């Protein structure tokens, strides 16, 4: 029996019908360039203005602090490179963690290799949490930026960002604090005031919005260099004709999750807990990676001993179940997930990892079907394995 079960919501989510409906007019009639002054284009401009307010409301910011971008990677690049170049007269030291998304890690590595910056990569414990004491020790008079993700994309660990911001600001209020909140948007309540961050990255497509649109929250008074140079869009900070339909979709998606982020995710968390309970009770040699307490509601990440991750993913795919793995074999590189290695898994175990990330439309029936198949697949692959 083949189903069509989507358990990869941390990779991307489906486009909500209401979001699609909100976007449609901007593909059809309202194609005008928002920068033009004639009446024809005011609808496009109005759409962007409204979306900016909706996204701002979703993270408790003011509309003037939201700058639309092409997505999470651009926002991460902008926050980091923009801070580094704006503050290089003050210092050249950046602090981040070993479990960041590559959009953060590779950007900082680029600044180290090509532009003379130095960086500290904080360790995490076996649950994936940064120790605030480690941050304290890493801060130096040369530090200009701390970038710690709010929630991890692989293991779902939620960092104590508000505490880390406080430590940073007590050391030196001029150090900027950036957080990549891509995974957190729409899955946990987000409040930039409570977090105290200067810069925050979000993207629409993890929250039932369209791909190709994101935003950088830049706190009022925070000044960073531009990344994309050109026209005067986004108050002269991010050039390029706006992705109007995408921005309007992002706004609609934000409006939807702002209304029910708590309720929506309470249901998802219940399903996730059912999944973890059944998997660990019924499959021998399966362990949950990450923290049970400080975890995104939809995330589960397992190590399935004596099974290679890619073989597992393809076997699940055979039954119509879409999930993902931290196995190197899914990416074509030699090393498995840097996140799983950072929480202390050995290479062999990291190769056998399975991430199941739930979304708002998943059901208990889907989870039970998945567990039943996972039991069969584990039996079959272990029968082939010499381990």
């Amino acid at each position: 029996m083949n189903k069509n079960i989507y358990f990869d919501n941390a990779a991307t989510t489906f486009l909500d019908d209401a979001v699609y409906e909100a976007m449609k007019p901007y593909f059809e009639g309202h194609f005008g360039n928002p920068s033009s002054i004639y009446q024809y284009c005011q609808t496009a401009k109005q759409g962007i203005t409204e979306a900016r307010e909706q996204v701002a409301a979703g993270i408790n910011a003011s509309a003037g602090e939201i700058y639309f971008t092409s997505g999470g990677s651009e926002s991460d690049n902008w926050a980091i490179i923009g801070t580094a170049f704006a503050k290089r007269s003050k210092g050249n030291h950046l602090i981040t963690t070993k479990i960041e998304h590559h959009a953060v890690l590779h950007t900082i590595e680029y600044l180290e290799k090509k532009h003379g910056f130095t960086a500290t990569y904080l360790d995490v414990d076996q649950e994936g949490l940064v120790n605030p004491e480690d941050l304290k020790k890493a801060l130096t008079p040369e530090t200009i930026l701390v970038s710690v993700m709010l929630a991890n994309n692989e293991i779902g660990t939620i960092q104590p960002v508000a505490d880390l911001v406080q430590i940073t600001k007590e050391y030196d209020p001029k150090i900027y604090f950036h957080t990549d909140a891509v995974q957190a948007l729409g899955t946990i309540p987000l409040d930039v005031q409570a977090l105290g961050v200067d810069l925050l990255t979000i993207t629409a497509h993890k929250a039932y919005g369209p791909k190709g649109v994101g935003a950088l929250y830049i706190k009022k008074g925070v000044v960073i260099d531009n990344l994309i140079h050109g026209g005067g869009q986004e108050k002269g900070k991010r050039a390029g004709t706006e992705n109007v339909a995408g921005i309007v979709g992002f706004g609609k998606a934000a409006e939807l999750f702002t209304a029910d982020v708590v309720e929506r995710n309470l249901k998802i968390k219940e399903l996730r807990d059912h999944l973890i309970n059944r998997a660990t009770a019924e499959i021998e040699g399966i362990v949950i990676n990450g923290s049970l307490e400080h975890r995104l509601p939809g995330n589960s990440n397992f190590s399935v001993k004596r099974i290679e991750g890619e073989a597992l993913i393809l076997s699940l795919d055979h039954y119509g179940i879409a999930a993902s793995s931290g196995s190197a074999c899914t990416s074509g590189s030699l090393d498995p997930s840097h996140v799983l290695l950072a929480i202390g898994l050995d290479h062999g175990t990291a190769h056998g990892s399975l991430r199941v990330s739930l979304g708002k439309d998943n059901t208990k029936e889907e989870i039970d079907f998945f567990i039943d198949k996972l039991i069969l697949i584990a039996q079959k692959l272990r029968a082939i394995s010499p381990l």
Partner: protein
Amino acid sequence: MYSKKVMEHFMEPHNVGEIEDADGIGEVGNAKCGDIMKMYIKIDGDIVSDIKFKTFGCASAIASSSIATDLIKGKTITDALALTNQDVVDSLDGLPPVKVHCSVLAEQAFKSAVKDYADKNNIDIPELRDFVPDEDHH
């Protein structure tokens, strides 16, 4: 990503298992790379009369093991040793470039099993004189 043939052999692999009274056993790869392949052979005269495998690894590693055992079974040792990883790749209707090492692993697992057989029986197999299984097959 994979050919139909790879998926067939991955989903329903041939010659899976162990041979209790095997004449030779070869094991290559390591868990760090994500692939371990173990092959068991039975030799009858100069014929590889039976061959079985157990593999921990990705779909292409399992499919490579399966098709390699199909290609080898029933051949003379000399003919079987003449098979290369490219024969495995071709028989699978191709492998993605990053997965070609899986076919190398299958070739080496078999060669290791024959070497084990030769060593145990003090047989000199000219083709294997210089054979050293390459751990770092990536």
